[in-house]
Structures are given as structure tokens and as C-alpha cells.
């Protein structure tokens, strides 16, 4: 059954947390745990969601949840799953799920994630991507996009923000031949819910990369959080896609599928200009971002649409 606002269970498994008002990451965790069953076991490395969810004595997860070492999200998921199984106490509807930020996934936890996919452990890994180390006060990660101002990539006279491009984690993960990987955005929750449901019902390693805006770090009004998460998809700087590995799709090398193929893109400039972190970008640099988007979409449309 397709899940939507009406059919989602009333349960709240992530509630009373201390995230900033209008936090995209907390929306991603809340939505994901609503789809997974109460028996889901969550593991979170250092990052916003563990900092705001575990404030002893305030414990905001209603399901079993624990904090992992920073680099070890995927390894701890492996251990939890194996431990439950070895003890014979793993319920049938138990999803072992990890919630790591962009830094905890693409920088610090990449090796452990790669190992878990290699072993094809039965875990779901969710990367909530707010495009910088927001928990420690907005430092650049390898998922920070070009031009974004952070405390370690400040905007000055010569450089106007982050100089590197966003690392392509989705395709890095897919290149492992993982059973299922997907990208999503908290701006398009029905799409995210559908992918969570799919991931929940597949065995083996699953990975979802969800864009989760951070009003504090992105420099946009809190109320605009969901709209910005939509805008990044509409303007083409993020894409909603799925990858099914060879075992699932029956296609050697696996198969990419676009969940959304916009006929026309919304304005990249409008998307960038509404956020404080891109304020210093020149029109030339914005044109550069746009050109990068067009090149990426040319490849996506060539390779991913059957």
C-alpha cells in the first residue's frame, strides 16, 4: 500500500528533539521511522540528529536507538543486525537503520559504508544531507556544493565560498552493485516515503541519500525549508533517482531509473540567491553552476532513461 499523509501511522518515533526550528534532517528521520516498523533499530554517528535526539534525560527516540563512533555507522549497523540474529531475537519486521549526515557518510564514514555494502549486510543506510558539518557550526564537507559559504570556505575577495564540487555519493554507492540505492528530498516526501517502503522490503544493503535543508546553515527562513528542498530538485541541482543492483533488476551492472525528469528546470539563480550561503556568488559563477547542471543532466538522460 502506498503510504501518504492519510495512511501514515500516527506513531511518532522521533519527537521532542532539540533540533533547530524548521530542521530538514529531523523531518527526514521522523518520516523514515514512521515508515519503518516500531521494531526498527536506529544507529546514529556524531551529527545533528544524535546531538538533538539524545539529551539525557530527554531521549527523543521511541524505538531502540544508539550513538555510534563517527566513522562506524555502517559497521555498527552490521553488528546490530548480526547480534540480533545470532541471539535469535530479531523480529521479522526489524529494520536496522542508520542515519548519518553528509560528513558522517561521504567523508568520515565512507569506508565503513563501503565495507557493509561489500558484505551485503541486511541494513538500511540513510544519509541526510544538509551539505556541511552543521552540528559543529557549518564546516565544509565533501557534499558541500560549489560556491557555498561555510566557516572553512568563507567568502572573501578571491574565493566566494566552497571551491569543490559535491561528491557523487549515490553513484559511488551504486558502483558497488548494491541491491538498492535512491536519492530523495524532504521537499518531495511522498517520493521519499515510497523509496523508504521499497528499501524496507528489500533484503541486503540499501542506501538512501536524502537532501535535508538546514535553515541555520543555508541562510534561509525556517518556514521556507520544505520549499527550498523542492526548489533544489526543480532547478535540477539535485535529482530524484533509484538504482537497482543486478540481483534486483536482473540487468548486469544494475539499472538507474529517474523518478522525476523535469521537462523544464526552475531557475538556478533564484534557488541560489534565496540562500545566504551563496550570497557572494557572481553571475559568472552562477552560469558555471548552471552549465555543470546541464552537463550532468545530459549524462543522466543519456544513461538512465531507457
Amino acid at each position, binding site marked *: 500500500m502506498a503510504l*501518504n*499523509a*492519510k495512511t*501514515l*501511522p*500516527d*506513531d*511518532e*518515533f*522521533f*519527537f*521532542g*528533539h*532539540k*533540533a*533547530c*526550528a*524548521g*530542521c*530538514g534532517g*529531523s*523531518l527526514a528521520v*521522523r518520516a523514515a521511522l514512521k515508515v519503518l516498523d*516500531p521494531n526498527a533499530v536506529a544507529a546514529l554517528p556524531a551529527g545533528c540528529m544524535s*546531538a*538533538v535526539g539524545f*539529551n*539525557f*534525560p*530527554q*531521549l*527523543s*527516540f*521511541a*524505538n*531502540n*536507538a544508539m550513538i555510534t563512533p563517527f566513522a562506524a555507522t555502517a559497521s555498527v549497523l552490521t553488528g546490530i543486525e548480526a547480534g540480533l540474529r545470532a541471539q535469535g531475537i530479531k523480529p521479522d519486521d526489524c529494520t536496522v537503520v542508520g542515519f548519518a549526515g553528509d560528513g558522517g557518510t561521504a567523508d568520515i564514514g565512507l569506508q565503513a559504508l563501503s565495507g557493509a555494502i561489500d558484505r551485503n549486510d541486511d541494513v538500511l543506510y540513510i544519509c541526510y544531507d544538509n551539505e556541511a558539518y552543521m552540528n559543529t557550526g557549518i564546516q565544509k564537507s565533501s557534499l558541500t556544493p560549489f560556491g557555498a559559504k561555510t566557516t572553512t570556505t568563507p567568502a572573501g575577495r578571491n574565493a566566494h565560498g566552497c571551491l569543490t564540487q559535491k561528491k557523487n555519493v549515490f553513484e559511488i554507492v551504486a558502483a558497488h552493485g548494491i541491491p538498492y540505492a535512491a536519492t530523495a528530498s*524532504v521537499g518531495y*516526501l511522498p517520493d521519499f516515503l515510497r523509496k523508504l517502503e521499497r528499501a524496507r522490503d528489500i533484503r541486503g544493503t540499501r542506501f538512501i541519500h536524502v537532501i535535508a535543508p538546514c*535553515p*541555520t546553515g543555508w541562510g534561509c*527562513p*525556517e*518556514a*521556507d*525549508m*520544505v*520549499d527550498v528542498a523542492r526548489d533544489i530538485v526543480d532547478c535540477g541541482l539535485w535529482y530524484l533517482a533509484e538504482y537497482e543492483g543486478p540481483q534486483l533488476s536482473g540487468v548486469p551492472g544494475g539499472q538507474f531509473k529517474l523518478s522525476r525528469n523535469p521537462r523544464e528546470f526552475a531557475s538556478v539563480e533564484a534557488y541560489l540567491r534565496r540562500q545566504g550561503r551563496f550570497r557572494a556568488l557572481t553571475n559568472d559563477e552562477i552560469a558555471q553552476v548552471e552549465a555543470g547542471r546541464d552537463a550532468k543532466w545530459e549524462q543522466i538522460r543519456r544513461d538512465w532513461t531507457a
Partner: protein
Amino acid sequence: MIEVLWHGRGGQGAFTAARLLGAAASLDDKRYALAFPSFGPERRGAPMRAFTKIDTVQIGDRSAVSKADFVIYLDGTLLAPDWERELKPGGICLVNTADASDDPRLLAIDADGLATELLGRPIPNTVFLGALAQLADCVDRESVEEAIRQYMPAKLHEANIKVVERAIALVQQAEVVGHEEAAAGESAGQPGAAAETVTGLHRSAHSSGAHMPQLFATVPEPSAYADTTCYAAGYLTQVNAGWRNVRPVLNADACTGCLQCYLYCPDGAIFKVSGQNKAGVSVDIDLDFCKGCGVCAAACKFDALSMAPETNAKEA
């Protein structure tokens, strides 16, 4: 030792003010000062505290201030019923509010109003710096202004010095009025009743059976957990309502039951109830845990949700 306790929200400049006050006091070679903030892993908009200690000898005690000569609330909504617990005998509590108070120990200053007028933004910290220049013996107008010049970015000097001057004038005025009232009769400020205990969520009556964290009146004793690393899941001891300056208000007649607000609320503070509309479903808002981000009002396509200032909402 003069001790000052600053209550504010992340982003209001409480720590900056605490530092500037210490800097102003220590301009005099015979004085020492210490300033430091205290906050948890909470975020922008969350209540935090900062402290300034000023003495004529070096200060060794680096612990938080529990009773202060001056307690300052940069946000009036943070003022708790038991505010006087933190006040030393003869101490003064300064509150950022437009509403006057009967209690002579409570001085109301409309700092947001003054800051908005002079800075264009409601950043109240230097207003209270000015107030302290008038009230505290260890700092005066010159030292506070010098601290601003030394520690704030140059482009902020002029406007903030103006703020300080206006704040001093405001407090002088209030002092004159206060003395007249004190002569007229003694106030009977009785300590308020202890904060009432919470036993359950406001919403539990509506969504019975939903699996979710519960609010408890008692904080678990840390010693009870000394021999385990496992704690009860979903155990809440604090509401998040204090984070909010605006709150969502539902116009039930306009609600179509589309539930987009429920779907997109980052805090799960909106829950389903049965409704009178065609869909037969509407929503209610858990104001104990709403942080006032406004995502719900932005998600509502039918203008059934709007954000109203917290101060007005309380009176309604």
C-alpha cells in the same frame, strides 16, 4: 563579587553582552572579570545562559552563577514563575518586555522596541548593557562605550553606543518612577507557586494508542543508571514550547483535511483529529512541542494555518 546572570536565546547576543560587560568592568586596572556562556546541544532559538563575574581580586571560581546581583532576560518569554530564586537579596531582575511589572525587583525594559528603532533589528543585548551602566557600580557609560569600541566590529559602534545612551536614559526615568512608588507603599511580592508538574502530553487524549515518546514529570536519578548504558526509549522531561516567538493558529473552517502540515512538520507537533470537513479529518497542534518554524503554514495551500505572535496568542 558582582555576579550577573544572562538568560537569552541562541542568537540574541547574550554571551556578547556578558563579555562586553566584563570587558567594560576590567578597563579599570583594579578590577577583574570573567564571562562565559552555558548551553547544551540545543540550537538557534533555544534558551541559553551566560554569566559575568566581576571582582576586585582575581576570580578563581569558574562555576555557573546560581544567585546573581543582576538577572537579565533578553527574551521576556523566558521569565519563569520562580525567577526570584536566582536573585540575591537586593538584586534586580531586568526583563525585555513592553509590559510593566508591579514587583519593584523586576524592571521591564522594551529592549526589542528600542533595538528595532535604532538598529533596525530586535537584538536586545546592548540595551541591557546600557541599563547596567546606569544600575551597577562597577561600570558606567564611558567604560561600556569603550568596551563596545574595543570588542565590536567597527561598523556596529555608532548604533550600539546610541542604544546604550538611550537605555541609560530609560532606566533613569524608571528609577524616578520606582522611588515614588516605593514611598507610596511596600509591594507584597510573594513567591509564585512551584511550577506545576506535567504528567502527559496535551495530545494524548486525541491520538490514544499512538506509539510515541511520553513526557514525564520526574527526571530520572542519574545514580539509578550508574550500572547500565541503556535508558528508556522515548523519555521526555522537557517541553520545547519555550523556543517559540510565533505559533501556528488553525482556522478549522478553512481546513480541507489535506494533512500537508502534518506530513511536513519537522517536529511531529501536528497530529490528526476527526474533522467536520468533507475529508472527515483535521489537525490539532501540540503547542508543548511546537518550535514555531512556520513550515506548516507554508505547506498549507488553503490558508487554514497562520503564524501569530506568541505574545498576542497568550492573551487570546
